[in-house]
């Protein structure tokens, strides 16, 4: 963003309080002047243009806005941006490197763990928090860890499989006899890159 100028809305009354927040987003230091009432989700989406964090329900139910807050999944639509001051925020944009997808992303694609894609970023971040803490979760543990995230398309079964796929890949890269691509997947499963 340019440092030459910062446009301030003409309507901005002198009585509107502004707070400076400084936070780490996907490993990068970011700062912004915000109204105290600005929600974290909106700072990420509208301020930093990290639009992978979606807002679905506004009431902390759907989890589409899930981000990692010092590694813990939180719902950024019911958290103020100022509460993130000094903290470390991880969003979906931070999952992949320039050349490589995170195994959770690969798993979601390979197991058809998404359809419309709207819940997917939040779902993957909740899954990442789980796998960071418990690299070998059972199906029940996965279902419980994801129970704060709603999906209307998939019925969850493939999401559970996607998380197991990622757990396998993260844990068992050495004994990877099966590349995970099911019948007929060959031509496309490996096209990333």
């Amino acid at each position, binding site marked *: 963003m340019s440092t030459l100028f910062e446009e301030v809305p003409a309507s901005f009354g002198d009585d509107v309080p502004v707070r400076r927040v400084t936070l780490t987003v996907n490993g990068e230091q970011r700062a912004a002047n915000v109204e105290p009432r600005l929600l974290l989700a909106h700072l990420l989406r509208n301020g930093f243009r990290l639009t*992978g964090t979606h807002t679905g*329900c506004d009431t902390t139910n759907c989890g589409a806005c899930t981000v990692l807050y010092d590694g813990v999944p939180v719902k950024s639509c019911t958290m103020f941006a100022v509460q993130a001051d000094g903290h470390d925020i991880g969003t979906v944009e931070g999952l992949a490197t320039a050349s490589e997808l995170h195994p959770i992303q690969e798993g*979601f694609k390979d197991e058809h763990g998404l359809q*419309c*894609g709207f*819940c997917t970023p939040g779902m993957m971040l909740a899954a990442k928090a789980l796998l960071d803490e418990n690299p070998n979760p059972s199906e029940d543990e996965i279902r419980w860890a994801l*129970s704060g995230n709603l999906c209307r398309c998939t019925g969850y079964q493939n999401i559970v499989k996607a998380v197991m796929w990622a757990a396998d890949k993260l844990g068992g890269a050495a004994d990877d006899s099966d590349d995970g*691509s099911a019948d007929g997947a060959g031509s*496309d*499963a490996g096209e990333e890159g």
Partner: protein
Amino acid sequence: MALDEIKIGGLGASRRRVEDNRFIRGKGNYIDDIVLPGMLHMEILRSPLAHARIRSIDASAAWAIPGVRMVLTGEMLAARNLAWMPTLSYDTQAVLATDKVRFQGQEVACVVADDPYIAKDGCEAIVVDYEPLPPIVNPTQAKAPDAPLIRDDKTGQDSNVVFDWEVGDREGTDRAFAEADVVSTIEMHYPRSHPSPIEACGSIADFNRATSKLTVYMTTQAPHIIRAAVALVAELPEHMIRIVSPDLGGGFGNKVPVYPGYVVSILASILLERPVKWIEDKSGNLISTGFGRDIYLKGEMALRNDGRILGVRMHTDSDHGAFFSDAQPSKFKVGLMHSAFSCYDIGAAHLTAQGVYTNKAPGGVAYRCSFRVTEAMFFQERMVQAAASDLGMDQAEFRRINLVRDDDFPHRTPWGFLTDSGQYGKCLDLGLEAIGYEDFLRQKEEARRRGRLLGIGISTMTEPLGAGNSREYDILGIKMFDSAELKVHMTGKALLRTGAKTQGQGHETTWAQIVAHELGIPAEDVLVEEGDTDTAPFGMGTYASRSTPVAGAAVAMVSRKIRAKARRIAAHLLEVSEEDIEWELGRFSVRGAPDRGVTIQECAIAAYSNMPDGMEPGLENNAYYDPPNLTWPFACYIATVEVDPETGVWDVLRVVAVDDCGVRINPMIVEGQIMGGLTEAYAMANMQFITFDEDGNCIGSNYMDYLLPTAWETPGFELHEVVTPCPHHPIGAKGIGECATVGGPAAFVNAVIDAIGDAGVRNIDMPLLPDRVHEAITAGHDVSGAPPVKTEP
């Protein structure tokens, strides 16, 4: 050597999805992700009351807020003849209320401001003076002699009845009932439910005064229909309107209609000459936009002692809310309700239907349902269970006796549909075997002796998917066909566009597979685009499971046109006559000399560099496909449950699904559709509904009240397949997107009713909440879920 079709991602390949590459990176492009230079933001002020006269609206405090650019009210719209708009069912709907509000959540005013927070501040600053009127929340109240008239805006409307309609053979059905050994009756309410995609609705209207062009980014499943509607409502020239439907965060029918927010954002952009973005919040979505169901049944079946169904009589009362805005074929007032019992060989049938206005949100649009077939098949399978029980027959055996047999196709139903293919008995047997039917019945008896309540529910159904044909199906007179346009570039790569609009169904992946199947061009070489009316061919959009049956067929047909031209090019290149050319996947060769051949890619470059004399250059074409019939997939869903008699809580033990949707283009995607549908079926049976209290307050206006199942509650699914190709679809496919939502709910409800069978209960209205089930068990009577619900302690 012929190509390996699976390797090139053709028909039958569980090809991984192309669209996922952006979604898993958070790089989807949903409506709220789009930012235009100079964009303003709009919020809607909604009515807190269900029925009230508007005495006055004072917006002066809103105008005074710094950053508020405009406040729009019904009065302002009325001055431009825009206060009312036509619905998809030949009714009118208020854009912003002028005279009265007719449901809680109705749009009353809009505020446009520099950012959405200021726009919300503006809405809060508007003072509306309401004079409350008595609200109506169900058909009985609506039809009461002293009921207040909801639609006093309509001349000639002197009651709250929207329509009376009937179909079928009244006399023949009366005769069947006169001959019956047993008459089985049942009454129930299919509750109001909301499709509730996680992403709500939204639009960005961008009117450019310099070019007179209006571009609207909009969450719509049917962009071309919207373009026509905007042209008519806003009186703008259609060629100067561009509708762009970006990535949609789910649709399920919710994103078919035209909503006031879209219309007002367009007007605001025209007046302010700046882009105006409206992003609906979840509550606004749940309380004001298209719902599904909310319909009451009185069903009767005429039965012979040997188990044969002689006739069916149904009466439905549908609650349409304040405006009749169903998106459905214009000939059929309760959608395709009369497709009930299409999988059974029944003698005669008669349906009467009445629709009413109430002080509830308008809609009655299909929710993951081809025009009320969800209700039709639910009523059917609940009636079938009651009938079998009245005859003292086994559930499965009663179905087997009455299912249409494989050699009876084509089969004309008494209500006039023509089902054309299926192996119903095979599907039922496969389902019973998979669930271990006989074993379960033994376990159930054993458990009962120990005080545990186990139950098994079956739901078998065929449903009409893929409207048109155009003879019978239209929306507002526009015939229901669909389209595809294919451009093969000179290097053999291709661009495909259709008139459908994916919302998660994976069109970008599957359409390319159809091209691969027809032309041998690898699927990864085909780019699929949809949703932009400036580039996509005219089509009716995606809903009612119509994309594969109609647009998918158009993709096959346009590919065949391309292949026909490529064949002529091949003959030219190989210097033989066209009759001597043979086709194998991806390659033409000379008959009798298979080594002499050219690939489709070689034909493509020749189309631009070495075409035969007199041939029009290029390798592009389009196809408009009008299907000869609907497609008729069949499904058998079986659920087993255990009910806790102490609490009324029920748990799903197993779910078996047998689906026959004809040829599967991408089996992975088909299974994804089935599992998603089963989850919504489970949701409706278990927890998901919208109801109203005596004052017309919407119960279910957010995700704390409107319960959706999470990964924790949702059961696992066991899927099986049978393939009976559709005889008229070019690649033999049938619709599948909605089957499980349509057929699934009855399996769960039948299972719970079966489990508590000893209580003498015929029906509990969905959702089967623990208190309802507990009341049924302890009091031994049916439990109604019809509104109003009591909210007093």
